[in-house]
């Protein structure tokens, strides 16, 4: 379009027939390049989403980093302790019994094992064997210290107590929907990897078509800029709308530790979207500067 407007009235008069032919072509070309630019924008947007999912939802290290950043383990420990104290109240043990037991139990290892099982696509049922064994040991030690003898009924009551404590433990360690998604995570990750490669290749091919089929450098840069900046705005919209809506903070989750994990997890995910948007923005600025440079150079000729 800009090439048309750069033709002077004098030139129009002199080479009218040739210009008419040129105009007929120039109506299709801009539409074609605009379409290619749109496809580039769509592919870059999908590529960004895939890249973000790969680095966050499908990344075990992202989950572990998020847990570390909010000190999830300490929160789980405090909540488990608080729940155990309440159970101990009902069970007739001293309050300190619950505190000492939870203190000695390795929450971090248990949480990390649970997360590892999820990302390996394995069994996400919380392993309660260590917890039960250590709790039984702690109860036996408590009974010995307090010189309490366990008859048949007491043993049954203690077994009931251990079962209730284990239920609390499982509830505290579990992350909602993890068991539902665990079976899909490995399979989906393979598909995501293939999709990412395909989208990356498509982006390269589309850029190459726009670049090599266009004889004018400033036009190459213009259409590439339009495509990349279109993807930039599309990627930017996701975290901006999510953060402006403030919905993440209104999530209904039973425990404080899970709430903090959920909020931090999604804030981290949105940071990755911002990062992708930032990369696309830098690319857009470079292409825009190149466009201006080549446009002025063409103008100089």
């Amino acid at each position, binding site marked *: *379009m*800009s090439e048309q*407007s*750069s033709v*002077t*009235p004098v030139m129009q008069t002199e080479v009218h027939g040739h210009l008419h032919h040129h105009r007929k072509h120039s109506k299709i070309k*801009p539409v074609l390049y*605009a379409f290619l*630019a*749109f496809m580039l*924008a*769509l592919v870059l*947007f999908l590529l960004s989403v895939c890249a973000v999912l790969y680095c966050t939802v499908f990344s075990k290290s992202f989950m572990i980093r998020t847990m570390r950043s909010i000190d999830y383990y300490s929160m789980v420990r405090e909540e488990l302790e*608080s*729940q155990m*104290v*309440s*159970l101990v*109240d*009902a*069970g*007739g*043990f001293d309050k300190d019994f619950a505190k000492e037991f939870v203190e000695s139990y390795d929450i971090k290892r248990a949480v990390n094992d649970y997360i590892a099982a999820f990302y390996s696509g394995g069994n996400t049922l919380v392993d309660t064997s260590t917890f039960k064994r250590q709790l039984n040991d702690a*109860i036996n030690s*408590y*009974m010995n210290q307090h010189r*309490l003898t366990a008859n048949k*009924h*007491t043993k*049954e*009551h*203690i*077994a*009931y*107590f251990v079962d*209730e404590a284990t239920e609390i433990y499982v509830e505290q360690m579990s992350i909602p929907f993890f068991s539902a998604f665990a079976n899909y995570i490995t399979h989906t990750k393979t598909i995501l990897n293939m999709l990412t490669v395909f989208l990356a290749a498509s982006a390269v091919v589309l850029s190459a078509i726009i670049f090599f089929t266009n004889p004018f450098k400033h036009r190459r840069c*213009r259409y590439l*800029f*339009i*495509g990349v*900046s*279109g*993807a*930039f*705005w*599309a990627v930017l*919209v996701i975290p901006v709308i999510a953060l402006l809506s403030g*919905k993440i*903070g*209104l*999530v*209904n*989750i039973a*425990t*404080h530790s899970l*709430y903090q994990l959920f909020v931090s997890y999604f804030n981290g995910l949105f940071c990755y979207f911002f990062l992708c948007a930032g990369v696309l923005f830098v690319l857009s600025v470079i292409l825009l500067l190149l*466009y*201006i440079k080549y*446009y002025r150079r063409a*103008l100089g000729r």
Partner: protein
Amino acid sequence: MYNRHHSHRKTLFGKDILILPFVFCAVIYIICALVIIPSSSSWLSLASIFFSDHKKDFSAEYTNIFVPVEDESAPAAPSIKQESSTEQRKQQTVNLSGLTFPSYEDQFGELTIEDCQIKAKLFFGDSRLVLSNGVGIYSGSAIPGYGRTILVAGHNNTYFNGLKYARKGQIIRIRTNYGNYQYEITDLQIKDKNDRSAYELSAESESLVLYTCYPFDDPGLTPDRYFVYAKPVSGPVIDKTR
């Protein structure tokens, strides 16, 4: 020369270069919406379960709305044992509209059984937070004065440990933010926790049922519950029509 220069300047940032990125962005989201729309209703209903209108409060603190009511008309304990007619109770009423109804986990009263050395904060609800701080009314039952069954839970090793000393005829006092009540213990029973005959929540008459785990002072949890039944003696009736 001037004309050509001017013409180029006008088109350096033409409409397409400025508008097309936004158009592309919009079209991308229209495509995404078209893909999502067929399953949008299930996603939206899922979102409505996941998100609420206000931020959840995770503080381990409870709200205390209990302000003791001075009740001059309430007679002393010994005379109450002799006069416990419903006619007498009807003389004192509390309007439902003027009552500050407790929210879940609110402390709105105090329960005392002097003979059993029990004095505990009374909450609405029976969550872990409640039972760690006092005794709680099951939220599916009624509050004192409402004319229905009042089911109160407490731990047998803490606030309701004294129930092991409960005997028929003893007086249970409940002070709330809207009135003071007295109940007389009528029965004591040990039942399984799943025994539905232990209490009737749909009963049309008021009764107080206290329960805790049984046996007392035994380590571990038990499936048996110790029930203490009491009938109302004094206290204002809640007028549900006003």
